[in-house]
């Protein structure tokens, strides 16, 4: 593409998202927008989600030394924070934050990729094309959530001593050295469900497919679904919590718990968190 072509047809090539009407149940290839709602009040910080992710997505175990070098590959991690006002003891417990790719609508990682290896799918996922990735790591540098993980090593040759490779999920690629990777909302499960639904001339039903973390979560703290469908649980929760996918700053009541993390950076994340509650009288 020549620069002249680009400048002359700027409005055509410029892809501003999100915009209202981008997703529409009645428009082909726009019927899905996968989203999450995560209740921090019932998340116990147990790490069942992270282990489920290792099992589902062929995440390599990197070992102590590489973990220390920041080369751990956990697509979902539990962050633990202590209260800033803590005097002697954390009397209101700890704060746990499950953090995974937020599948931003205006993803900061996408615009900086020199080869277009990370881009948006029709169903609102921030995808990573392993074949196209050249390992510049610009995306990781630009991600405000720090949820992109780079294969510094050739893990297929070291991380799964035999017969551990027998456990690998055949639906998910095993990534090699020099590739960036991240949470996909278990796109292999989504694609299978979408394909099954298509052969039956219908849309994916609410609850028909969930990512591995959602399926495992012992307290059911995570809700997942198609937010385009107003009857899906996740859409109802977002609406009830007064979080609008298309707004960068929410105007909501004080009593309502929904929020998106680092929203003021305007990445328009697809994950809504619900505030942790503490009984201040206790």
């Amino acid at each position, binding site marked *: 593409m020549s620069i002249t072509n680009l400048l002359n047809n700027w409005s055509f090539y410029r892809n501003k998202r999100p915009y209202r009407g981008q997703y529409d149940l009645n428009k082909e290839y726009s019927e899905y927008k996968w989203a999450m709602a995560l209740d921090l*009040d*019932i998340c*116990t*910080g*147990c*790490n*069942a989600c*992270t*282990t*489920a992710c290792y*099992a589902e997505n062929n995440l390599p*175990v990197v*070992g*102590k030394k590489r*973990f*220390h070098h920041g080369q751990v590959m*956990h697509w979902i*991690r*539990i*962050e*633990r*924070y202590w*209260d*800033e006002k803590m005097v*002697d*003891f*954390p*009397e*209101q*417990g*700890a704060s*746990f*934050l499950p953090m995974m790719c937020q599948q931003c609508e205006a993803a900061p990682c996408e615009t900086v990729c020199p080869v277009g290896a990370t881009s948006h799918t029709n169903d609102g996922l921030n995808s990573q094309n392993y074949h196209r990735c050249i390992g510049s790591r610009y995306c990781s540098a630009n991600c405000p959530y720090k949820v992109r993980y780079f294969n510094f090593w050739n893990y297929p040759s070291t*991380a799964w*001593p*035999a017969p*551990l490779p*027998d*456990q*690998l999920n055949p639906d998910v690629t095993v990534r090699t050295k020099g590739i960036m990777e991240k949470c996909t909302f278990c796109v292999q499960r989504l694609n299978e469900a979408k394909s099954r639904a298509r052969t039956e001339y219908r849309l994916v039903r609410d609850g028909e497919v969930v990512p*591995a973390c959602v*399926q*495992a979560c*012992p*307290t*059911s703290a995570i809700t997942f679904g198609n937010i385009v469908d107003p009857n899906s649980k996740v859409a109802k929760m977002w609406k*009830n919590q007064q979080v609008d996918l298309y707004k960068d700053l929410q105007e909501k009541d004080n*009593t309502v*718990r929904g*929020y998106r*993390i680092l929203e003021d950076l305007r990445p328009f994340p697809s994950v809504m*968190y619900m*505030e*942790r*509650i*503490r*009984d*201040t*009288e*206790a």
Partner: protein
Amino acid sequence: MSESGINRRDFLKVLGLGGSSLALTGCGNTDIRSGDELIMPNVSPEDFVVPGLSVFYASTCTQCGSACGVMGRVREGRVLKMEGNPQSKISGGKICGLGQAAVQVQYNPDRLTQPMMKVGNGLQPVSWDKAMATLNEKVGPKSGIKGENFAFMTGAMSGHLKVLVQNYLDSLDSKNHFAYEALSPSIGFAANKQVYGVDMPRLHFDKAKLIVSFGSDFLGTGASPVHFAAEYAKFRKAPRGTLVQIEPKMTMTGANADRWIAIIPGTEGIFALGVANQLLKHSEFTNTVPAGIASLVSKYDPETVSQITGVRPELVGHVASLLWEKTPSIVISGASAEGHAHGVQNAVAIQLLNKILGNVGKTIDGQAKSPFPQIAPEAGSFSSLKAMNDAMGGGKLQAVFIHGANPVFTAPSFMGFRDNLRKVPFKVAFVNAADETAQECDLVLPILTAVEEFGSNIAWYQPEGVEITMQQPLMNKLYPDTRSMGDIMLDLVKQRRADEYKNWPDFFSYLKAAVINMKPAVKYTDTDEHFWYDTLSSGVIHIDAPQEQIGDSFAEAALSLPEVQNVQDPKFPFYLVPSERHYFRDGRHANCGWLQESPDPLTTIVWDSWVEIHPKTAASMGIKEGDYLEIASQNGTLKVKAYLFPGIHPDAVSIPLGQGHESLGRFANGVGVNPFTILNPVFEKDTGELAMFGTRVSVKKTSDSEIVVKDEGPVSTQMGRKLVVTLPADVAQLSKEI
């Protein structure tokens, strides 16, 4: 092949396949006999295997004793992932990380794949024929092994394998079944038995408006963590319940509390009596306990309680007022309150609050009673280890079998278990990996993992009715030279009672017959075959058994807690809290990469052991994160690096259990230290159980230090960013939420 001068037909003859009536297609796709061109798939799938499609089979997770119903995702004959089984009332379709790791046990690179026999000082591989012949020679009918000179140690056990173990011991006239769990619930059981008349009452967290937990980590390591997590989620929905946690070191449950209170280990009972004293001042409650108990409790005024427990005096009244305001409530005790010389008394004092508040019958009632006592669970205890150790030390035992336990690793070093075990002439271990105990044995037999094996399980905590969770193989056995524990047991029973068991060639047929015989209990009307297949496909047998009746009796004697427990020992000034990590438990799962790399929820440390010390204490001793400390008790010293942790009492230090393996596998060996080794011989006086939290230690800083590898960043707060936002409970309107 033409180059070497032989044609394809000759080649097949060499391989012993010549003249085969099967179409063995090569590159040319020609029929061997006629030479016709054939179109054949490269891989002929077996029954039920559709390439590219996953099939889910129901089974039971045996990673801990909760017996969650699970589903194994199977593709092309391999099990790939574990999910919860929605038909199980215990798991409710959910699963924890420990359960996920069952596939890493299955495909563990360090699994034992063939029988081993001790030759000299090492283990050498032998054939099964040789192994079974040795078993027959050493413990068979002609061996003279009988009665008191034989012992069978297992872990916690239930189901039909337990029946076979029992019957085998019966055939030997031996009563020595030692069910040993290093982290057993026995002390809590004894207190419950005293108060409620049952080992374990049923706890209704979802019905409670307030949970006051004295050290019970029910979300992480309790009786049934996945079930309790679901109950906890209901408890946190509108109207949101409040959780108060009182313990010396913050557990995962404590991290989720609305109010977390640090207490000196062992003084939990005093605190409970102090709260009881405040409650009894309300006229409503005065007649709930006998006058004797009321007067006994009355000496615990807030100031006295504060002096003993190290908790601020106003918190005693505060907890009492919370209990007064929020009904119904539930008060529970856990490991850190029970693991003391007066552990039963502590737990009884804690349960007294339920009695005063009238919670018994509301949030605490009886579990359903299993109609089949023979397969009922045996939770395991420390006293069995002690009994076996004494018998071995006295030279009584001529042969021992060990299955489902690793006592050489978990027995405290003061017991001298390893030396006593060596005195036994013939020792057999049934294992998945050659662990520390197996290294000491004369015969080590590789058994199938839980995902390759048939079986039946009953958990000792049953949320609804009685659930018998069924195990079925999720795949063929990975190694030809591993055998089913059930099959081995059946062979052993047949050594002496061949006639009684002749109808069953293997454990599968035995289990099938046994399960079909249960049919009347579940009012199933279809045929036996259908019942068996329905049972396997749903993974659970649900029996609507009547609830056990529970009482609530409190003896004054049980509540007379030792006067002053906070004795300062100048030589060993710190309390040792050996903490149970929810994915490691007693250490049997340490050889899973996923679990080693799963950060500890509170410290976020991976692949290591550490000692938690309060930042104030650390500052007074000049200790920084990563400094190696020498933690010494009367029975040993551990060198372990420091982690500054605010969720611990300043007079206590805590080391997690489960690491410090010498022989379990590549992911566990040489990682961290084993705090079991330095525990003191302090025993609970009613039950004889080891008082896990009764050890005192000294802390000495060394000049060494090393970076602590953890997921946490350089700061542990949110630095003013709105990452996790906290809303006060009185502002939130949960009832309006979806």
